[in-house]
């Protein structure tokens, strides 16, 4: 019962936050120098002030700031995020077409990073003098030090050029024919390198976090109680201790989600993954304001949704966390 109230409260806050994000984004972009008119004029090889004004009038850019903001906001409520000048497509359609690819990349890399990172953390905490501990320390050093684009490029050199095992980029091979299953396998095949690249930083983060958290929990009195009850060691680790140690990992995973999306932008560019990242890059270069705003809107929507999800998961894992 109170769980549903928590969810409702969180969604309420989420909507408010989203509105704030929209206003902030709109203001920031209006303040930035240059607009579509400059970009179109540039493409046309220059235009006089009269033509520029005409273009601005067509896109409503001649209106006062608050009128523009009001128009934009009322559009958002009907999920009309405007029309992309550069792609000649409604922004919503454009973004929704690209969003699944980004979500696939983001979620798969997060799942890998959380699952593998936690497992490594537990194994390292269990045996502080073992090899896994060294692996975790090395991963942490590498993951924090190496920028993702560099990791991506290294992986491309290793597994595309030197050992041609994986495709260089993209999400699908158009020449592959077959049913849904074959196509899905093909996407998975293309997904592997970008997924590894994006998960590398977070694997480092979560494995260190899980190790520290587990080390602390393993010294707790209730772990001794579990052993005194005759609980098998595996169950002591993965049931009694881990459920307590997961809190920090889940919390940080939730906080990091926004940074994962920005990481995805870089990774998508390196691997020409057809997601929001590549779209963002193209629309920024084209000064395609409605598309940029649309991407920001949907990204914040995803981040806020994921944070609500994190809160729910945390509550399910730890009964001490109360609604707030």
């Amino acid at each position, binding site marked *: 019962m109170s769980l549903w109230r928590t969810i409702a409260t969180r969604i309420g806050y989420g909507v408010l936050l989203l509105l704030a994000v929209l206003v902030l984004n709109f203001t920031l972009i209006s303040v930035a120098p240059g607009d579509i008119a400059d970009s179109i004029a540039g493409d046309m090889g220059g235009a006089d002030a009269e033509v520029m004004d005409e273009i601005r009038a067509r896109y409503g850019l001649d209106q006062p700031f608050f009128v523009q903001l009001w128009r934009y906001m009322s559009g958002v409520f009907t999920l009309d995020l405007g029309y992309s000048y550069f792609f000649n497509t409604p922004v919503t359609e454009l973004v929704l077409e690209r969003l699944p690819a980004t979500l696939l990349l983001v979620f798969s890399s997060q799942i890998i990073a959380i699952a593998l990172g936690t497992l490594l953390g537990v194994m390292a905490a269990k045996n502080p003098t073992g090899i896994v501990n060294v692996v975790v320390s090395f991963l942490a050093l590498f993951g924090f030090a190496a920028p993702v684009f560099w990791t991506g490029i290294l992986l491309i050199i290793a597994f595309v050029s030197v050992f041609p095992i994986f495709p260089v980029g993209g999400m699908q091979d158009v020449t592959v024919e077959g049913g849904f299953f074959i196509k899905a396998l093909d996407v998975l095949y293309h997904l592997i390198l970008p997924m590894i690249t994006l998960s590398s930083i977070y694997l480092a983060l979560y494995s260190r976090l899980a190790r520290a958290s587990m080390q602390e929990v393993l010294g*707790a*009195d*209730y772990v*001794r*109680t*579990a*052993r*005194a*009850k*005759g*609980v*098998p*060691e595996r169950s002591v680790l993965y049931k*009694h201790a881990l*459920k*307590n140690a997961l809190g920090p990992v889940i919390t940080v995973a939730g906080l990091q989600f926004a940074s994962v999306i920005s990481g995805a932008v870089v990774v998508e560019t390196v691997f020409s993954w057809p997601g929001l990242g590549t779209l963002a890059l193209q629309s920024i270069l084209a000064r395609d304001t409605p598309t940029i705003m649309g991407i920001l809107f949907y990204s914040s929507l995803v981040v806020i949704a994921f944070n609500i999800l994190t809160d729910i998961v945390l509550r399910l*894992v*730890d*009964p*001490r966390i109360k609604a707030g």
Partner: protein
Amino acid sequence: MSMTDPLLSVEDIVVDFQTRAGKARVLDHVSLEVESGEILGIVGESGCGKSMTALSIMGLVPDPPGRVTSGSIRLDGVELVGMDHERLRRIRGKDIGMIFQEPMSSLNPVFTVGEQIAESVRLHENASPRAAMDRAIAMLRAVEIPEAELRARAYPHQLSGGMRQRVMIAIALACRPRVLIADEPTTALDTTVQAQIFDLLQDLQSDMGTAIILITHDMGAIAELADTVAVMYAGRVVEKGTVETVLSSPQHPYTQGLITCVPHLEPDPPAERSELMEIPGVVPALTDLGRGCAFAPRCRATIDRCGVEKPALLPSEDAHLTACWVAQGGAQR
């Protein structure tokens, strides 16, 4: 020497810890025995090896840094020292249950108390989840927790300290163990709750016939509950015998000190108050124990021999055992 083995016998157990300051002999040839239906009290100051004795019986001496160097622990004649981990695990929680000092932190915060009691029943008796939960609820009733069905679904943080310690007792007794080790079960609780917990332990013990090893520094509790008592100091048993003999005629100066340390409430206090006794000094560091008696630096009645040779645990006049040169009749060899 009795003809039959006692239910649980600890014989000459030695536990060493590797510390930064060197090797520490945490338990030095400790021997104890407890029979079915009997309560053995272990008393001593903090750091004298009471809890480590309990952990070594459970096979839970943290290793590293600790290690059971030598000795023997037998439950019904079955040797526990060096037993393989899997067999020992099956004995823990089933044949030997344990209650810890801190009810606040000894229960897992993320599982319901019912689940935590039911778990050991599932583990040791192959019970179905339903049957295990029924047993858990029955155990909650046995430890006198009201509304047991409701409480079984509560998390530890929703219960008071006394309630939690009752839950710990329910966990420890869920599989009807033959030996229950209670490591300072009431230290963290209010005085009134302490009395309730002791009453509960006594009732359950007479119902189930469980042998209890009660670790405490509360001499009053020992006098009230225990049948036999072992006094520990710096990792050694310094005095051992029935409660009557040890408390009425303590031979070791440390035991004498512990007994006189207990404050008494008098209904009609004399105008001139007697001073509360204390044992001067502190428990020595286990890494630099000398050749002699570890208590000698704090002792009021030392003789030359105390500083050079450790006294053995030998029978004194009224047949209880004491490790004290003075009590054993002084300097003669």
